[in-house]
């Protein structure tokens, strides 16, 4: 299946051979090869912790390699920093857009490559050049507006334009689609296809399997820091790819499918009932009930008010109308603290900014939730240890060492730690906002099955996700949001992905369409 060495190097734009990178105590990469050709979109696949980011960072000059060689356009290179790699024609667009939001669009494209005349920057010419580079990608923007005033999707495309200013021969896209909605993904793909047709080698890293099959030509799979293989995409099926990534077959993913059909007893008092609760400018008043043992999904496009609804429910935003009842009694939910006091645990969307404390250990991050609930009373050491080891085992957190700093864990494992933090507080309602975004198939399956299992045991869950398949699979009822408004509610058993998309797009809009 894989090509011979000679075939691989002949027309290769990038040839990474035998790359090994050692971190204290871990071999992050062990003898990995990667070959990129001009005019191809090459997917790099693997679970979190498989070594994808490490390999990318070796290619972009952020990490020095301990062994192995990197050749770009036939020339052996040693990178001492990102500037070196850019010089060699390798540009990168990162998952979190790494541009300066305070500067103008044009500057972000041209920074470091401004047009200068007589020692000073010629702004008119610089902006003209920026407009040209943006237009090459089909973007027409006012380059003098601040980058921060544009959507993430546009910022991502600006980042790609910037990469093309340096006449990159190799473009690395590190999970570019994880914060884009469907339409924006298509824009990005159009740009990627265009670059491919111009002979650029695009390295595409993503967790969305369907996107890999939609756009890429070849695919390199990593597992546990080792190379599994390099395959033409036509020779793979989604199932085959997943089993290559996991090194095991898929039966545990299939086991979940029954969760949404489980009957829920809605005769008693709901755990939490929102009655016309809303907040001006954020979310219009809405009614939502969550019954014991029920998983309520929230679906809608990015920015439709999903997160805002969750935040009101959790007390992270103070509702200025209506009321919220917990176990049948109206309560005050003005701060997250009130939410915690009433047994409402909220795991926010942006786990890096609002969830984990990177400089604390896994154990400390887990204990934090229960400590917040207890207030000043001490959580005994033995109790802490018992809790921590229980959850590390129950959720399969890797590495299974409570004393590593959480920022060194992969995204999926960080998310599991957050889940553990809130489960340790024994909540009545668990609100999960995008718990599986940007994490790999294995961790995703772990988290999904844990949620299904917990709800079966009687925990109520509000589950928010951009992946409609996931929402449908896990929840019994789905609240659909659009333009900061609840537009309806569906029973999962009565609809499918297409039905849900149709509902999101058209419900209550017949007149307009």
């Amino acid at each position: 299946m894989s090509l011979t060495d000679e075939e691989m190097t002949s027309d290769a734009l990038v040839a990474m051979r035998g790359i090994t990178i050692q971190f204290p105590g871990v071999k992050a990469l062990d003898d990995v090869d990667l070959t990129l050709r001009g005019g191809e979109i090459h997917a790099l696949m693997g679970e979190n912790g498989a070594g994808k980011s490490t390999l990318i960072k070796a290619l972009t000059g952020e990490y020095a390699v301990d062994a192995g060689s990197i050749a770009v356009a036939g020339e052996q290179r040693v990178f001492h920093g990102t500037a070196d790699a850019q010089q060699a024609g390798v540009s990168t667009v990162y998952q979190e857009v790494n541009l300066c939001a305070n500067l103008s669009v044009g500057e972000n494209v041209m920074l470091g490559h401004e047009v200068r005349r007589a020692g000073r920057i010629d702004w008119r010419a610089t902006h003209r050049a920026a407009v040209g580079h943006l237009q090459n990608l089909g973007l027409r923007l006012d380059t003098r507006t601040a980058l921060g005033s544009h959507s993430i999707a546009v910022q991502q495309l600006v980042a790609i334009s910037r990469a093309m200013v340096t006449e990159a021969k190799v473009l690395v896209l590190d999970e570019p689609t994880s914060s884009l909605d469907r339409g924006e993904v298509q824009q990005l793909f159009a740009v990627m296809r265009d670059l491919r047709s111009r002979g650029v080698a695009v390295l595409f890293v993503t967790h969305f399997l369907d996107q890999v099959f939609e756009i890429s030509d070849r695919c390199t799979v990593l597992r546990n820091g080792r190379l599994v293989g390099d395959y033409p995409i036509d020779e793979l099926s989604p199932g085959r790819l997943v089993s290559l990534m996991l090194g095991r077959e898929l039966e545990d993913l299939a086991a979940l499918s029954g969760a949404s059909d489980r009957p829920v007893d809605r005769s008693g008092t709901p755990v939490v009932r929102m009655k016309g609760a809303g907040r001006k400018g954020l979310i219009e008043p809405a009614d939502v009930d969550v019954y014991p043992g029920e998983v309520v999904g929230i679906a809608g496009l990015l920015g439709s008010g999903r997160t805002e609804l969750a935040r009101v429910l959790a007390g992270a935003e103070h509702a200025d109308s209506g009321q919220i009842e917990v176990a049948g009694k109206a309560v005050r939910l003005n701060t997250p603290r009130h939410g915690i006091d009433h047994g409402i645990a909220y795991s926010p969307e942006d786990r890096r900014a609002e969830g984990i404390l990177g400089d604390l250990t896994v154990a400390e991050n887990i204990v934090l939730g229960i400590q917040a609930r207890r207030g000043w009373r001490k959580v005994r050491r033995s109790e802490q240890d018992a809790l921590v080891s229980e959850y590390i085992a129950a959720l399969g957190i890797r590495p299974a060492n409570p004393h590593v700093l959480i920022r060194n864990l992969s995204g999926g494992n960080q998310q599991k730690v957050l889940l553990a933090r809130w489960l340790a507080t024994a909540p009545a309602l668990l609100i999960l906002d995008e718990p599986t975004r940007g994490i790999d198939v294995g961790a995703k399956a772990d988290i999904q099955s844990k949620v299904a299992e917990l709800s079966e045991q009687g925990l109520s869950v509000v589950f928010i996700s951009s992946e409609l398949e996931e929402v449908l699979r896990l929840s019994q009822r789905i609240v659909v949001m659009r333009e900061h408004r609840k537009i309806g509610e569906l029973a999962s058993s009565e609809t499918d992905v297409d039905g849900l998309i149709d509902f999101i797009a058209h419900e209550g809009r017949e007149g307009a369409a």
Partner: protein
Amino acid sequence: MTSTQTVLTGELRAVTRPHRFMARHASWIPVFAAVGILVAMVVGAQLYFGKFLTPRLVSSILLDNSYLLILAVGMTFVILTGGIDLSVGAVMSFTGMMGASLLRQGLPSSVVAPTMLATGALIGLGVGVLVQYFDVQPFIASLAGMFLARGLGFVVSLNSIKVTDRPILWLQGTRLQAGSGWYITPTGIIALLVVLVGAGLLAYTRFGRTVYAVGGNEQSARLMGLPVARTKLLAYVVSGTCAGLAGVIFTAYTGAAYPLNGIGTELDTIAAVVIGGTLLTGGSGFVVGSMIGVFVYGMIKTIINFLGVDQSWTRITIGALLLLFVVVQRLIVARSARRR
């Protein structure tokens, strides 16, 4: 490709003219606010006192605050990178002491003045190295620089040193008249030149733009392949050099050097920069704004003088204004964050 175009031009077309101006110049709003405050103060004083604004008065505000203006320009660079430089007042005082002592020993001012600038630059470099390579908080690194400079000032002399050097005194004593009471001193010209050079550096050089990039997002700037370390270092060197130059100007202004000069000046400088609309978080602000901030500061002092009340009211007013500006800045930042 067509779909990309339709979506994004649609977005563009929705933007009307005044909106476009605001979208392009949003970062100037705090500067406009500072200008508004300055105008309001002048108009208010004019109405209250009847006869307030004269060419003489405007000229003297520049004269009395040229050292502060120079410090503020340097401080703007540092604050734009997201740092702070607490050493400038002490460095100004120390270079003044050093200069005065060297002049007393008979060295010509053509040697002494550049030495003062170089000394300031060197201390700035030291602070910058601490910040960049030893990862020390700018607050602490420049506090160390402040104590060092203050201490060195006392080492030079515990008493005031009078300056009799002609060229130095000429800087302050010469009044270039321009009829009907307008005048400007060489110190004022130097300060305005510093503003011009500072503004030019920030707006029209890669170094200047990198300063903004670093302040906006240091990690991004690094990943964009920009020379982050060199730029941050240089920002502190600029500030130190400005402090050295302020030492020359302040010595000329007072005709003597005294080791207790400039205590608290670094805070006045920061206040002026912040009132002038530079965000303390970095990445947004202008030298011209800092100049307005210095004028606001000078205007408050003058008005307090006119009122004939105690000068401690200057500090109280500055404090109140600073509070107002910081709150307004927070609101602006919070609003733009929400809109995103």
